[in-house]
C-alpha cells in the first residue's frame, strides 16, 4: 500500500539552529502513528511543519509529500486549499481553539462554507458530524462555554472532520481531559480512522494512550528521531535507551506495584541551540560510551524497528 503522507529528512531551522533534524515518516491510509517524547522534543513543531503553519522566521526543508505532491514547495495560496481540507488538525486546548461567541454548529460549518459548500448543505452536514462524534443531544446553536471539556474536544474533532480529510493530526488532544473522556475520544478517533480510511497522527506524551490507538510509533528526542517501529514491539522491547527511559517512568496501569520507585530519567531535554555533540541523549543515558559523543548516530536496525543508537538494547 502506498503511503499517503511521506515525510523525508524534514528539518526546521531557526537561523543557524536546527530545531528539527532529519525526521522521516510514512503514513498510509487508515493507519495511526503515535509521536511521543518529552516536552521540548519537537512534537508540536513537527505538527506545525506538516501543516505549513510554522511562524516566521522558522523554515522547513526536506519534503512533506501528500500523494506525491511536496507541500513544502507549494505557495501559500495552494497550501490553503489543502490545509483544513485534506490535512486537518485537532489542537491541544479546546477552550482556546473554539470561538466563544459563535454557536458550535456555525463553527463546524465554517470550514465547509469556505471550501465551497452551500449554507443548507453545510448546516445539514454539521448536524450529521455532531451526531457522529457523539454530540447528538447537543444543539448546534449551543455556545462552547455551555459544553464540558470532552464535549468541546468532540466539537473540535467534528470541525476537523468536516472536509473529510485524508490525514488528521491530533496534538496532545487529551491533556486537558480526564481519563474516561480520554479513552472515549481515542476510541472515537480510531473508529473514524477505520471508517473513513483517514490517516491519524497522534502526538502525545502519554505512552499508554499511543499504545491504545497507534499501530506505529515514532519517538522524538531533542528534535531528532530516536526510535521508530511497530508500537507493540518498541514498547515491549525498546532498543533506544530513551524509549526505555520513558517506559520506566510511566505507570503501567495495574502492572506497576504501588509505591514502587519509578525510574525517572535524570536531567532534562537539551535546548536545540545547546545540543551536545554526537548523540543528544548521551548525557542522560546509562549506557553512554565515549564513542557516543563522536557523531550523531543514524537510524538503523533490522525489520521495521529503527533506533538511532550506537549501543542499542538487545532484543529478545
Amino acid at each position, binding site marked *: 500500500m502506498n503511503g499517503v503522507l511521506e515525510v523525508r529528512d524534514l528539518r526546521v531551522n531557526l537561523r543557524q539552529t536546527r530545531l528539527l533534524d532529519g525526521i522521516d515518516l510514512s503514513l498510509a491510509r487508515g493507519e495511526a502513528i503515535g509521536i511521543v517524547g*518529552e*516536552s521540548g522534543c519537537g512534537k508540536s513543531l513537527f505538527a506545525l511543519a506538516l501543516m505549513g503553519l510554522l511562524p516566521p522566521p522558522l523554515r522547513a526543508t526536506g519534503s512533506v509529500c501528500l500523494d506525491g505532491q511536496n507541500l513544502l514547495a507549494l505557495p501559500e495560496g495552494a497550501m490553503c486549499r489543502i490545509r483544513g481540507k485534506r490535512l486537518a488538525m485537532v489542537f491541544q486546548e479546546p477552550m482556546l481553539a473554539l470561538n466563544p461567541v459563535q454557536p458550535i454548529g456555525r463553527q463546524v460549518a465554517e470550514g465547509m462554507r469556505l471550501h465551497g459548500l452551500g449554507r443548507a448543505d453545510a448546516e445539514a452536514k454539521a448536524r450529521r458530524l455532531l451526531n457522529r462524534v457523539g454530540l447528538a443531544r447537543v444543539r448546534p446553536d449551543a455556545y462552547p462555554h455551555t459544553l*464540558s*471539556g*470532552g464535549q468541546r474536544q468532540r466539537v473540535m474533532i467534528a470541525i476537523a472532520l468536516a472536509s473529510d480529510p485524508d490525514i488528521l493530526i491530533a496534538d496532545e488532544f487529551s491533556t486537558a*481531559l*480526564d*481519563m*474516561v*473522556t*480520554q*479513552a472515549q475520544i*481515542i476510541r472515537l478517533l480510531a473508529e473514524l480512522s477505520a471508517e473513513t480510511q483517514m490517516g491519524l497522527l497522534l502526538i502525545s*506524551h*502519554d*505512552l*499508554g*494512550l*499511543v*499504545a*491504545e490507538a497507534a499501530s506505529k510509533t515514532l519517538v522524538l528526542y531533542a528534535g531528532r528521531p530516536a526510535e521508530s517501529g511497530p508500537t*507493540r514491539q518498541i*514498547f*515491549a522491547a525498546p532498543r533506544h535507551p530513551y524509549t526505555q*527511559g*520513558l*517506559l*520506566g*517512568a*510511566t*505507570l*503501567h*496501569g*495495574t*502492572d*506497576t506495584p*504501588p*509505591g*514502587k*520507585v*519509578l*525510574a*525517572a*530519567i535524570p536531567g*532534562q531535554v537539551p535546548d536545540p541551540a545547546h545540543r551536545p555533540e554526537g548523540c543528544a541523549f548521551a548525557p542522560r543515558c546509562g549506557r553512554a560510551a565515549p564513542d557516543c559523543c563522536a557523531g550523531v548516530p543514524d537510524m538503523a536496525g533490522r525489520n521495521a524497528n529503527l533506533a538511532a543508537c550506537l549501543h542499542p538494547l538487545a532484543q529478545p
Partner: protein
Amino acid sequence: MTEPLLRAKNLVRDYPQPGSRTKRRVLHGIDLEVAKGECLGIIGESGSGKSTLARILMGLEAPDEGSVTFRGSDFFGPARRAIRPHIQAVFQDPYGSLDPRQRVGAIVGEPLIALGVGRAARQSRVAAALAEVSLPAEAAEKYPAMFSGGQRQRIAIARALVTRPALVIADEPVSALDVSVQAQVLNLLVDLRARLGLACVFISHDLAVVRHVAQRVLVLQAGRSVEQGETAAVLRNPANPFTRSLIDAVPKPVRS
C-alpha cells in the same frame, strides 16, 4: 478507634447559578477521614467536585453544610489560625502557582512569615525544606523561571513542607507534568510519606497515579462519594460500575 487526623462529615457545597435563584449542588454530603501518615486518593471525572472538595479541605472555602475537623477541632471555627500551619496545599500548575518575580527562597519562606518566624530561622528552614525535595541550597537565590517543570513542582512541595505540616492537600499535582518529571514527583511524594510520616490527600483524575501513592481511595461521581476503601481492594473488586469504568479507562503502554 483513635481520632483521625482529618475528618470531614456530610460536606455539602452549593454554588449559585447565574440568572437563576436556585443553587446548584456540587457536593452532596461527603464523609471522609485521613489517618496520621496515610495517603487518601480522591478520584473522579472533571466536574465531579474534586477541586471543590480540595478547596474546602485546604480551608479556602467553607462548606454550606457539614463540618471538617483537624485533630478534633473545628476547621472553620476559632481554632483555624492554630490549625492552618499543619495543613498545606500543592496545586496543579507549577508555572502558575509560583510568583515569577520572587526568588525561590522568598517563595518557600513566605508561609513562615505568616507564622512570625524570624529571618535567620526562616533561612535555615527554607534550606532544610529544599534539601527535603533534593534541591541544592543555591536554588533559594534563583527565580522560578530558571527551573524545569519538575523542579518547580518540587519547589511548590518545599513551600508546603516548610511549616512542617502533618497533612498536605495536593490537587492534581502531576497532571501538568511530562512522564519523566511525573515519575520524579511521585517518587518524592512516596518517599516523604515514608520518611516524614506525612499524611496526604491526593486528588487526581488518573487512577494509575492514585493507585501508586494512595493506600485508601474515595471515588467521586457528580458530587457523591460512590465508593471508598483500601485502594487495592477497591481496584481488585470495584462495587460500583462507575469505578469499573475508571479502571477500564487506564491505558497501558504494554498489553500483557
